[in-house]
């Protein structure tokens, strides 16, 4: 692999293979408040990108915990269709108070749907995927807009 010539590689060539998790950060912001960054290590995860079948398979300690399909929209945008399991490794709910449960419920819907990522960095060794979105959080008949900035950092 180290002898591969990459001059003519496109995003799909770089994506192909097994990526080791490094870190995922979720930045949550509510209207005019300063936000909170919730980073968590993902060094126990492997992401097998199969560019033939267009699948992303997440493995944790030898156990497949999630599998989704992706579409490479162009050289800098990737669309992933998540599953109900995606939020479990993409968002660390442990350090946050139980009072934020309405946010998590809304996030679960978001992560299990189709999400377009910006490919912020992609080369032979590193991949950084990012999206930001406004999540409507429903509570007692009201809606509060919560901004989520999600970044995934993978290495080969």
């Amino acid at each position, binding site marked *: 692999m180290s002898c591969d010539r990459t001059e003519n590689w496109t995003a799909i060539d770089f994506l192909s293979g097994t990526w080791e998790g490094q*870190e995922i950060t979720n930045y949550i912001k509510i209207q005019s408040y300063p936000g909170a960054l919730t980073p968590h290590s993902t060094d126990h995860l492997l992401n097998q990108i199969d560019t033939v079948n267009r699948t992303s398979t997440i493995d944790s300690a030898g156990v497949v915990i999630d599998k989704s399909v992706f579409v490479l929209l162009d050289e800098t945008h990737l669309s992933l269709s998540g599953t109900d399991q995606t939020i479990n490794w993409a968002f660390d709910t442990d*350090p946050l108070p139980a009072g934020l449960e309405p946010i998590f419920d809304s996030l679960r819907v978001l992560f299990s749907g189709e999400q377009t990522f910006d490919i912020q960095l992609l080369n032979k060794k590193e991949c950084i995927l990012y999206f930001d979105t406004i999540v409507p959080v429903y509570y007692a008949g009201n809606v509060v807009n919560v901004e989520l900035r999600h970044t995934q950092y993978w290495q080969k």
Partner: protein
Amino acid sequence: MVKKTLLILCLGLMLSSCFAVHPELQSAKSEDKGAHGYSIGVYGGANVLVETYGVAGVYNYGLTDKVNWSTDFSFSVQVSSLKRVFQGFGVNQYNLSSGPKLSVLNNRFALRLPATVTYSTEEFYLSTSPTLLLDVIDEKATLFLRYNRLYERNAIEGYSGDVVFGFNYFLPLKSDQILLSIQSNGVGLYGGIGVTL
């Protein structure tokens, strides 16, 4: 509407845990009329969610022997680890505060009343940061209490802002020019080291 405001307030208070936690790199004593005083320092710390690393500085100019114009700045990064800072990760925050500082009781007690502008994640936050400073232990240490109150332009009425309390200790080295600082906002603990020039 009331329920919505309460929800925003509740969620906001839970999340806004790393706002303006920089140290006060000064004592209660004011500079003499026409004199200048500078301090710079580095700091770091953590709360349950994230680590914070930053640099800070303060500049005082003596308008009179008891009243200074006091300006401080800080730059900080919220991030998972120091290693990630050098990889370009994290959320940056810039603070600039400027306003008068009044020293009384033989320069042992001071009140700062600065206006503060904070920039983070492409958004500006305006606030006022009244700060009390009290010199203790023969002026070898300073206790401080800072209340950072966001202005009403903030959409959330009733949010009272963040309180930071801390302690500076001036080491008996280099003519007491080196100081250690510890401060907390109640949900995180932060420390730093600075030098007065």
